[in-house]
């Protein structure tokens, strides 16, 4: 069973090699981002709860409908209050998580439940205080990472996919489906593509859509509103990218577990990473 797939350590030592994988800047920015994104997510959901509807355009339609997502609570005919999530006009019953949550005897009517917000209770002012502090940390770390990655070659070497990476994407995809992972110095095509999307598209978009929601920044940089076709569209994009980053996070964590959590975690803490020997991917040991 489980024991059968473990080779003896002695064999392993003879066939593996430890390298220095992640530079100091990469490791430091990784963990600062992890901290910042944790609080940005939970305080962001707190802020969303103050007006749990998303729109497309310059303004929010109260006398007209330009909403794309709305979370709320409605009382049904038999007196039961249920949580509803309306996405592009389609209503879903999300009682227990979205709209209505908490124990049966202490139901609360809020979009995202207490366990997904900081603070746990409804408090927009504190949500904003937390969000903007970590937004500054997040954006500063992004600038540091960008400059460091341009200088130390991390961006060109590890993030931007090469032609060969693109061509090997199908193979890389199949290997992932088979739970066969490379343990080399460099990232495979799928890894590069997802990191490039997160670091070079999602992160800058998150910062820019966030700035577009600021009335001060809209005066300072009027092109922001034009770029995203309206403040309310920017708010919607901000939310969508949040969802994409949460999906990335879930896949990221699963991949770390699947590829060997100790080795992967060590490489992101100390930089040391054990790579495969000369013969990658022989048969799995079952």
């Amino acid at each position, binding site marked *: 069973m489980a024991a059968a797939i473990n080779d003896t350590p002695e064999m392993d030592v003879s066939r593996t090699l430890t390298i220095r994988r992640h530079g100091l800047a990469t490791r430091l920015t990784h963990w600062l981002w992890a901290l910042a994104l944790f609080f940005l997510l939970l305080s962001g959901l707190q802020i*969303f709860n103050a007006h749990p509807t998303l729109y497309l355009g310059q303004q929010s339609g109260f*006398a007209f409908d330009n909403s794309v997502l709305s979370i709320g609570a409605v009382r049904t005919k038999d007196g039961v209050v249920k949580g509803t999530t309306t996405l592009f006009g389609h209503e879903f019953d999300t009682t227990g998580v979205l709209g209505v949550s908490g124990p049966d005897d202490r139901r609360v009517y809020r979009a995202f439940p207490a366990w997904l917000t900081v603070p746990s209770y409804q408090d927009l002012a504190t949500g904003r205080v937390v969000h903007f502090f970590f937004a500054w940390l997040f954006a500063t770390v992004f600038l540091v990472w960008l400059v460091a990655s341009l200088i130390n070659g991390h961006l060109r070497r590890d993030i931007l996919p090469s032609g060969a990476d693109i061509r090997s994407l199908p193979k890389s995809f199949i290997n992932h489906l088979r739970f066969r992972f490379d343990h080399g110095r460099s990232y495979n095509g799928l890894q590069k593509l997802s990191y490039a999307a997160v670091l070079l598209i999602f992160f800058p978009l998150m910062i820019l859509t966030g700035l577009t929601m600021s009335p001060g920044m809209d005066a300072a940089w009027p092109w922001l509103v034009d770029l995203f076709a309206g403040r309310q569209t920017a708010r919607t994009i901000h939310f969508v990218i949040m969802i994409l980053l949460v999906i990335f996070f879930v896949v990221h964590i699963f991949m770390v577990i699947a590829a*060997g959590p100790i080795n992967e975690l060590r490489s992101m803490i100390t930089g040391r990473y054990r790579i495969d020997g000369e013969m990658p991917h022989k048969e799995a040991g079952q």
Partner: protein
Amino acid sequence: MSRLLINRRRFLTAAGIAASTLPLAGCDAFDGMLKNRAPVRDVLASANDLTYRVQRLLMDADRLAPEFGESEIRQGQRPNGSTEPTDPEYIALRQQDFSGYRLGITGLVEKPLSLTLTELRNMPSRTQITRHDCVEGWSCIAKWTGVPLARVLDEARAKPEARYVVFHCFDRMDLGLSGPAAYYESIDLIDARHPQTILAYGLNGRPLPIANGAPLRVRIERQLGYKMAKYISAIEVVSDLSPFGRGRGGFWEDLGYDWYAGI
């Protein structure tokens, strides 16, 4: 090599354990340190000073907020906060259609003023179609007409030591356990003298409705809605905000909201 690979069952077990810890994320672990006036919270809130300084660096004093065309006025201005003050003085003024209304301009000025609505309407006016951004997250576009606050301050001749403009209001709102408190707000002189900062008496081509702050409200287009005090009873030019309310410069600020609301 197989040591580096794990089977699907082990993977799913490990992933399941990891996923089950996610709901612990938010909970109430941080509630205590984030209460009003807790040290950690004060450190986090200091980011607002940084935002204020950086935004002041990034925008010229006279840089305008975006303005829109008539076609963007697609609905009435959504009222928020107080929509019908019950203060006796206000009700008395309202019954006379605000004919007895006097806007006092006092504090650090050479020439204190007391202006009627007619006098305010006879001063040079500005009309602007702008987007109102509520701190809650929604936006609403409307046309505002009023007298530039800079014009009124020029007439009253603010003294050199003046740093802020405080708006006193007729409406009272619930401040939690300590009962209702008068609404008030404050801004710096840069926003006070900004061309789009007007004391508005008109909305969408009509007199300002009660729900939107009649007889007079301020528009501060580069900040959020809670800065734009409604039902203004008096304006005071000051050098220090600590004597007012709980000393944080506004009704919502006293409850923990940031003083600078350009974000």
